[in-house]
């Protein structure tokens, strides 16, 4: 993901100088080589991202080693404070709060990802099997919730999960019908639980699972299935031996698109989650805003990044390698 920070200070400046542009131009880079157009096109977004993304990001990393002080802004470096304060990282591994928050986030995100896969895979497969005209409409219906407000989609479920909503009463009736009388409930406790968090995560992130799965399933060659069927395979075998292995890149892409935002989620656990079992995003926000402990908030943020940077790097590596293999194949 983010390259080593040590490379940052020099490169944006050098990228803008004509001296840096000329060797690339000599290598035949294309049509923009004259008159510094090239430099402007590279430098403007480059400088923007360095100033407004890379520098703030480096501040977080540096802040995770700072010491909390009762000043404004509430941190100290050097002087009477240690240059590198590792207290935050020590707390990360010893304080129960952080360990439990990481485990809750990991569990919620993993369950949500798995459920998205279980629901999204059949949906994506079904989408490849409808007529093209109907498929476009259905795909639009998959994407439509993605365009509407994220916050309002979470809110829509708050309306359904509340103790006296029609949905909750329906579930309560079903439950009371199925279980013996002494286990009857007045309502199903859904709000402010991890179940609610997972359910709403599946709801909001399902399109991110369906779309990459659909993209990889759509590319599959149907004649392979036919050949396997002609040779006597049953549909379940065709799925296990042909469809599933070929859709692995889609599964990985969809899985990361769901897992990464789910692990760092703040809005969903705040609105429908259990405040006694906060997820890691909530812990970062609370440390920062309520406790005004910038160094600790930054430490937790860095830890969260390292939980996710590695899967992402592994994924891009995997993707690049499988892409190469595909190109090598005749």
């Amino acid at each position, binding site marked *: *993901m983010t*390259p080593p920070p040590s490379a940052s200070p020099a490169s*944006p400046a*050098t*990228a803008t100088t004509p001296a840096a*542009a000329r060797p*690339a131009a000599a290598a035949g*880079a*294309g049509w*923009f080589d*004259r008159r510094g*157009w090239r430099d*402007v*096109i*590279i430098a*403007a*977004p*480059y400088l*923007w*991202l360095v100033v407004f993304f890379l520098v*703030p*990001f480096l*501040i*977080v990393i540096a*802040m995770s080693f700072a010491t909390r002080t009762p000043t404004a*802004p509430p941190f100290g470096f050097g002087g009477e404070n240690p240059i590198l304060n590792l207290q935050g990282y020590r707390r990360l591994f010893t304080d129960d709060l952080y360990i439990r928050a990481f485990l809750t986030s990991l569990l919620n995100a993993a369950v949500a990802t798995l459920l998205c896969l279980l*629901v999204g895979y059949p949906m994506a497969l*079904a989408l490849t*099997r409808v007529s093209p005209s109907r498929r*476009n409409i*259905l795909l639009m*219906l*998959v994407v439509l*919730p993605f365009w*509407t*407000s*994220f*916050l*309002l*989609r979470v*809110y*829509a*479920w*708050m*309306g*359904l999960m*509340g103790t*006296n909503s*029609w*949905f909750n009463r329906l579930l309560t009736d079903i439950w009371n019908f199925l279980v013996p009388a002494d286990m009857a409930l007045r309502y199903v406790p859904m709000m402010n639980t991890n179940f609610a968090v997972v359910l709403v995560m599946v709801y909001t992130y399902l399109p991110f699972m369906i779309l990459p799965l659909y993209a990889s399933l759509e590319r599959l060659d149907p004649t392979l*299935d036919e050949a396997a*069927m002609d040779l006597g395979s049953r549909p379940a075998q065709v799925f296990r031996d042909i469809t599933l292995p070929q859709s692995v890149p889609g599964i990985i892409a969809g899985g990361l698109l769901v897992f*990464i*935002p789910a*692990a*760092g989620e*703040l*809005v969903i656990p705040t609105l429908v989650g259990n405040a006694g079992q906060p997820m890691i*995003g909530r812990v970062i926000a609370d440390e920062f805003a309520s406790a005004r402990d910038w160094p600790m908030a930054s430490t937790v*943020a860095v830890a969260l990044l390292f939980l996710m940077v590695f899967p992402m790097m592994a994924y891009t590596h995997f993707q690049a390698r499988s892409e190469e293999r595909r190109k090598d194949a005749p």
Partner: protein
Amino acid sequence: MRRRSTFLFTVMAFGFAFFYVPILSMIFFSFNASRLATVWGGFSTKWYAALFRNQQVLDALVLSLKIALLSATCATILGTMAGIALARFRRFRGRVLFSGLVTAPLIMPEVITGISTLMFFILLADWVGWPGSRGFTTITLAHITFSMVFVTTVVHARMLQADAAIEEAAMDLGSRPWQVLKDITLPVISPAILSGWLLAFTISLDDVVITSFVTGPGNTTLPLLIWSKVKLGVTPDINALATLIVLTVGAGVLIAGILLQRAERRRERDMQLAYRANQ
């Protein structure tokens, strides 16, 4: 092999019900006369009427639209530049860092982007005295940053599909770089620029987490207003506001989708006509 699988289609039906039942329920209860948001008390449009008289909501909407228009436009310009740079300039110093910088914001959790940007603004104000107060400017700057990378992704993908040979041919025939950009590159990638702008606009209009960090007193965008109310529970006036937002966005996406599909069909027909004419 288009075998019909009952299982697949059942799951798909349930999936679409899962997608739309909560939204339809919310729309239904926005016409509820009762103050209790989830118990039906008769049909009424009074929450909609109340909404249009609510100055707070209207102010928040105007602020959100202003920020979204400005940030989406800046993000589209910067993001398109980055997309062109990544697709056409194969080698420049710092390219690895650059391609890292345009993907990192996509996977960065919003909380981290929020606290890092806020710390940046506070420290900057401490060191150079700017920004003196947080609000419109800081929100817009933050929105440009996280939405420009979405534009870059869309434009970059389109640039990779487009044929660089046409641009080179125009150069060989004596066009200036500016002319090539104006007459060839931008028209070719214009659908991507348009969808990039729409994406940036929607993301800006929708953002809660990052905005909640970088905003200042008195600068409440529409999502922030909804956020502060929703935290207190479900109310019929939020149902009404949500219904208006969902229906507006839904209609916009449907119309855009139909127009795009029609344009695609026309292009296919033109290509077939051209092909037949050449035979």
